[in-house]
């Protein structure tokens, strides 16, 4: 009797294939399939109710979905750019410190150590209009005698969420850019000094190009993070009031788990994934380009 003999490469890869199939491939295929059905969590048999592109058509023609999409892109753009600027500033300052730099680096990472849920609760309290820290401080200092509705006002609510995002993630940029600063060779900087470059010129034409690959890596990581922003927003405003802070994943989360319309939620999820894919490709292209300019990559 001949025993089935698999080629050694397949045998070696088999555990990885099985695990990846179980935790990634099967859920992915199942969720893709369910996005073409009217699947509701509370009615398991509805997973066999094929509705074609109905869910996709519904999402693509839904103003609320596109408004949430737009808000997510806005959050992504504003938060990422500000985090980059603040992270760059933070890294440049820390790199100049000669004593206690290690302590500063550790302190810089503190916000990253908090769970986003806790960050959400923390800022929900800080920005509370009645008992919140910010309003109490502003009123005690005599700056205002109003209760500013931070989490309610159309602009302020989004600002509060962006503030919380920036507080928690600026250090991602800070740490990565700091690593970039340590990796910069001294020769070009000294050559620039000898050639009479100002501090700004040295930074703009020598330091920054060297830092760009690090910045793009941080951007790619954070763009994926922000594109799936959920926890902080869910706790602070739950997408409200009046959908003023509704993002893609608060909308999708509510549709899938509270309304139990998992088929529709999955369809919206698949459309949203394109957003994440677009930003990832964009930042990786930029990364390759900046590495090329530095002569680091093909």
């Amino acid at each position: 009797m001949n025993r089935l003999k698999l080629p050694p490469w397949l045998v070696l890869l088999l555990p990885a294939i099985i695990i990846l199939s179980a935790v990634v491939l099967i859920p992915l295929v199942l969720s893709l399939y369910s996005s073409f059905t009217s699947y509701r969590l509370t009615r398991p048999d509805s997973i066999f109710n094929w509705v074609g592109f109905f869910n996709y058509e519904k999402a693509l023609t839904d103003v609320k979905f596109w408004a949430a999409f737009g808000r997510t892109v806005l959050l992504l753009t504003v938060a990422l750019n500000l985090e980059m600027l603040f992270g760059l500033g933070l890294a440049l300052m820390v790199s100049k410190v000669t004593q206690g730099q290690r302590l500063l680096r550790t302190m810089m990472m503190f916000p990253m150590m908090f769970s986003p849920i806790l960050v959400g609760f923390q800022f929900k309290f800080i920005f509370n209009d009645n008992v919140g820290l910010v309003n109490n401080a502003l009123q005690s200092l005599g700056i205002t005698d109003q209760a500013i509705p931070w989490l309610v006002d159309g602009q302020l609510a989004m600002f509060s969420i962006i503030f919380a995002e920036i507080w928690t993630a600026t250090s991602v940029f800070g740490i990565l850019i700091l690593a970039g600063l340590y990796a910069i060779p001294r020769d070009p900087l000294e050559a620039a000094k000898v050639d009479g470059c100002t501090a700004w010129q040295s930074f703009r034409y020598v330091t920054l190009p060297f830092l760009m690959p690090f910045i793009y890596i941080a951007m790619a990581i954070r763009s994926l993070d922000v594109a799936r922003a959920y926890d902080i927003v869910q706790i602070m405003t739950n997408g409200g009031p009046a959908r003023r802070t509704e993002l893609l994943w608060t909308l999708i989360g509510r549709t899938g788990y509270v309304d139990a319309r998992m088929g529709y939620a999955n369809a919206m999820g698949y459309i949203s994934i394109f957003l994440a894919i677009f930003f990832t490709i964009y930042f990786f292209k930029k990364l390759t380009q900046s590495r090329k300019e530095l002569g680091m990559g093909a």
Partner: protein
Amino acid sequence: MKTLLSGASRAVLATASLTAAISAFGTAQAGEFDGVTIEAKLIGGQQYEALYARIPEWEAATGAKVNIISKKNHFELDKEFKSDIAAGTTDWCVGSNHSSFASQYPTLYTDLTGLVDKGVVAEFVQANIKAATFDGKLVMLPRAQFDVSALYYQKDLYDDAEKAKAFEAKFGYPLAVPETWEQVKDQATFFADPPNFYGTQYAGKDEAIVGRYYEMVVAEGGKLFNDDFSPAFDSEEGKRALQWFVDLYNAKAVPAGTTNYLWDDLGNGFASGTIALNLDWPGWAGFFNDPSSSKVAGNVGVAPAPKGSAGVRTGWSGFHGFSVTEDCANKEAAASLVEFLTNEDSQKLESAAGPLPTRTAVWDYISEQAKDDPYRREVLAAFKETAATAFAVPPTPLWIEATNLIYPELQAAILGDKSVDDALADASEAVDDLMQEEGVY
């Protein structure tokens, strides 16, 4: 003789204890469920724990074991139940249920009618039993966690002669604890002194604001849904009800963040002494009058929920209960546990801490117990009066989903993003689409 007597007394004692056991544990016999393990998913939280401490008594009496496999709040349990239904993992036996959520799980829970004696069911407040029955199926037995809202207020506001004079001069009628929602609006506007003091407040998001709006529509003489569950709130009554919320917000009589508030924010707000009038649940009564948790302790009055322009009181009500799953391997044992957790002793224990019972006899018992405590007496009188005309949420499995479509539109009107007419028209259209898509009509 001595032996005989002692034998006889033992027999009498045994009979007496058996009778006591039967009355305390319903129809369960001693050791009847030996070796049975009941898995339960229960609502968690300090206020619910006292009841769970009784479970060992039931275990000792029946020989069964209870294994609590999940303890969460109802919103989290709701998500877990939905995931269980989707995954087919519904062979646990007893689950905490709530009248506002119950209609969403038509396949999850079994009909308790055949499992619980008719006489036992008759001992509950029948309005609660009606609200626990869907499509003829009794899906839960209510525990002593009946919720309807009455009006808490700061008493000293009504003792100030100058305020009373100023109020009467402005509104043309004497200042007294409000009996109508129109009076609440007048008084809330009058008392408000933002950002330090507000006339009133309301839950501003999720199902909470829709519940408040729903009871206001009813108090105005309208309906949220027609009998076929098509939306009925885009009506004159519905507009009047929403205008009440809008007017208070525009007058700055409610905190600016009220559209972000849920129950805890409201309770803590009133306890902080910055709110004059507060429509709230019975569970807060003790908290509000406790000097260690509340700045208004000793100054709290409680009145029945005010009436709308139709002369009807607001009375959106709900209650917690326990259900038995359809897939439970031993439904009799599970039903026995549910019966035990909702029996007279259990309800007396729970309602001693403040929550309202759902058994007629326990209502009488707590009224008797409160006769020497004027505050408790006032609380019970206000809630009893409100409970008499209370009503549950519309019995549709799409209730929560409909509220998710309605509440952003209510918020949009309150915050001025849309007019009342546009907001209600949009909400009505969205709910209509949902009902049609789900084949309700």
